């Protein structure tokens, strides 16, 4: 009778309880860098918060356009909904900007266009920070 081979070790450890990582993920979304700060990675938190904040403020100063979800043809839906998700990913920066009445039209011009891209890039940077905070909180990364 042959022995059964041991099952291979999982590539990732099992997901810990949701209360261990969800507050970190929510904090990381709402305030860029806050997830790392909660996990006591203060230098990384400072670099991430500084980068997201700086590119977002530059986007505002360049009078970038904040996307609204819009439907129509496929390309319009992808660009405007994707842009909206990118803007929303900056958390409280986006909500405060809207709350203070920022409402720039989507006009032609390279400065405004770069500003629009910077505002979305801030959200994409924060998504990377959220994923990193999640991995640290679940023990998949130091």
């Amino acid at each position: 009778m042959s022995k059964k081979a041991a099952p291979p070790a999982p590539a990732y450890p099992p997901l810990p309880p949701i209360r261990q990582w969800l507050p970190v993920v929510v904090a990381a979304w709402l305030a860029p860098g806050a997830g790392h700060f909660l996990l006591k990675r203060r230098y990384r938190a400072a670099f991430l918060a500084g980068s997201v904040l700086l590119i977002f403020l530059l986007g505002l100063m360049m009078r970038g356009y904040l996307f609204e979800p819009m439907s129509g043809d496929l390309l319009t839906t992808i660009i405007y909904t994707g842009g909206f998700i990118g803007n929303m990913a900056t958390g409280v920066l986006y909500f405060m900007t809207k709350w203070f009445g920022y409402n720039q039209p989507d006009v032609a011009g390279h400065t405004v266009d770069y500003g629009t891209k910077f505002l979305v890039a801030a959200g994409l940077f924060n998504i990377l920070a959220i994923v990193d905070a999640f991995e640290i909180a679940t023990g998949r990364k130091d």
Partner: protein
Amino acid sequence: MPKMTLSHFETTLVFALLASVVLAVVTKRTDRDRLRYGLKSFGYFMLTVFGLSWLMYLGHR
């Protein structure tokens, strides 16, 4: 909120710098690796910018 106008090059420079910082922080595990990756990433961004700029310049002559 003051208004700001940056040139194409300045905008690219700022984006490359901040993207390199974020990518280095989230992808590497030690500070030494982060520093090396950040500098390398920024260097590649700049190399691409100058390469494509020359390509466009020569293509439009």
